[in-house]
């Protein structure tokens, strides 16, 4: 397991622990049967998502020094992709009361930011940027933790994991960069009714491991994600 993935898993467990940590005392106060959807139920959801940013690293505009001269940097850049809010939509299918599968789309427009400094001819430090359009088309397996339900069974924690296709477009769709995405995390569904047709809300936190797409390094990177959605089942 690579260092990046190991770190990702640690973050994932931490996120899950946070969810179950909140859940545990509540579960003790409000025991009850979990409100799980029956097999064959479809579940659609839509809402917002916050996707974390990541560092791309520093890169200097270096010239080859003449004999007797030291290395020459015309200027230096510090590159990062900023966190961004976006939207997400999912369609799920309940296979068993505890298990469902779902497919979804996440769309965000993060800012790629370049801090330019140390110009050899004293140009003032500045920040230049562009907006990326980031799409993740993914599939997930969701496992509902019926035994940890609380709130009279209306609040059902879950864990999820899956993989997807990452597609990132630079401004004006000038360039497309593609990659793979793997994700894991946990969350909570709160139902406002019973039966096959009902509505609810869903919150989740997790990690997204990206392999490819817009990056300076040929390595996987990990970004945290937090989302919230409205759910409708039928």
């Amino acid at each position, binding site marked *: 397991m690579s260092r990046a993935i190991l770190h990702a898993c640690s973050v994932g467990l931490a996120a899950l622990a946070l969810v179950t940590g909140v859940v545990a005392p509540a579960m003790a106060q409000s025991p009850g049967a979990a409100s799980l959807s029956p097999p064959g139920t479809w579940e659609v959801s839509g809402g917002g998502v916050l996707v974390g940013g990541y560092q*791309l690293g520093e*890169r*200097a*505009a*270096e*010239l*080859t*020094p*003449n*004999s*007797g*001269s030291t*290395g*020459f940097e*015309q*200027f230096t*850049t510090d*590159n990062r992709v900023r966190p961004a809010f976006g939207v997400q939509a999912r369609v799920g299918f309940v296979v068993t009361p505890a298990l469902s599968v779902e497919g979804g789309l996440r769309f965000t427009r993060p800012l*790629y930011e*370049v801090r*330019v400094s140390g*110009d*050899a*001819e*004293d*140009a003032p430090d*500045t920040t*230049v*940027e*562009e907006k990326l359009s980031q799409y993740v088309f993914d599939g997930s397996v969701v496992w509902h933790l019926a035994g940890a339900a609380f709130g009279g069974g209306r609040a059902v924690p879950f864990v999820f994991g899956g993989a997807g296709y990452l597609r990132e477009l*630079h*401004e*004006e769709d*000038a*360039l497309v960069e593609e990659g793979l995405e793997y994700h894991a995390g946990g969350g909570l569904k709160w139902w406002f009714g019973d039966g096959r047709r009902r509505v609810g809300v869903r919150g989740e936190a997790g990690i997204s491991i990206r392999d490819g797409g817009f990056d*300076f390094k040929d390595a996987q990177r990990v970004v945290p994600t937090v989302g919230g959605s409205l759910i409708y089942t039928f």
Partner: protein
Amino acid sequence: MTRRSRILAVTVLALALAVPAGAYLKLGTRVGNRTESLRWRQFPVRYFITDSGVAGVTAMQFQAAVTRAFSTWHAVENIQISSTFVGFVQAPPFVDDGANVIGYLSRPGQDRTLAATTFTVDETDGRILESDIFFNTIFPWSTAEAGGTDRYDVESIALHEIGHLLGLSHSALGETELIGGGRRVIAAEAVMFPIAFTRGNIADRSLKADDIAGISDIYGTTTFSREFGSISGRVTKSGRGVQGAHVVAFNPKTGKLVGGFSLNPNGDFVIAGLEPGPHVLRAEPLDDGDVTSFFDDDFDVDVDFRVTFYERVVAVPRGGGTRDVEIKVTAK
């Protein structure tokens, strides 16, 4: 068909010869209302070597170094060029004899010119008909593998001059300092920078991104056109075009630098041969070399502005161009 000879030189401290240039990175000639890039239309380029050596470098060693320099240009991916060494001749370079001759000449009057390239072109279409290169014997030369102590490296200077022979003009990707009435290079990131590194330095045996972008712009294959892109736009000051601004595209992912110039009073510039990806653009006045190293004497160059970065990252598409970039500079 009309012909005209041109001369380009690489210098020790300062340029001694005026250099006509019609386009950024590339040499060009006016054909009606347009500029035609100078280029060879027939390959291989057949060249001869003058059968004479200098102290420390035999004619054979000289020929081997020149051939290695040609090979370095040939090795650029996605271009179509080739050359053939035909043989040694008694004729010196710089004779309008229809043959491409490379060799030594003594030019004590040009005490800041290490080497120079002439060529004869068909001004109706920019076709290069003949090109000669001379190396000035007043300087000490070496072909030693690790470079000769206190001697100029034949292969490095040949790589620069062959760049001219193939149609490239000078690059401004370098920093200099004034010294003893001339200029000394502090650092450069293009073999085609007009001022040579100091004696013993062999860093210019390898092409840089700027050189590769330039040669690919002239001789690129369809693969090059499909895989690389360009940035075009204007440099303006108070709403008016800035002519002769040096615009550099920096790829923060790869660290590569490729430069170009705004070439008309409207401030228009094009930088081609860029790898797809994000680029940071920087415009600077042309103040690290004699202006005549890059442009004709009658080409007005505006150097009264501050170094400026374009406020947006510019993404270069694969096989296309990003247009309408406007870099707004302010007067000093």
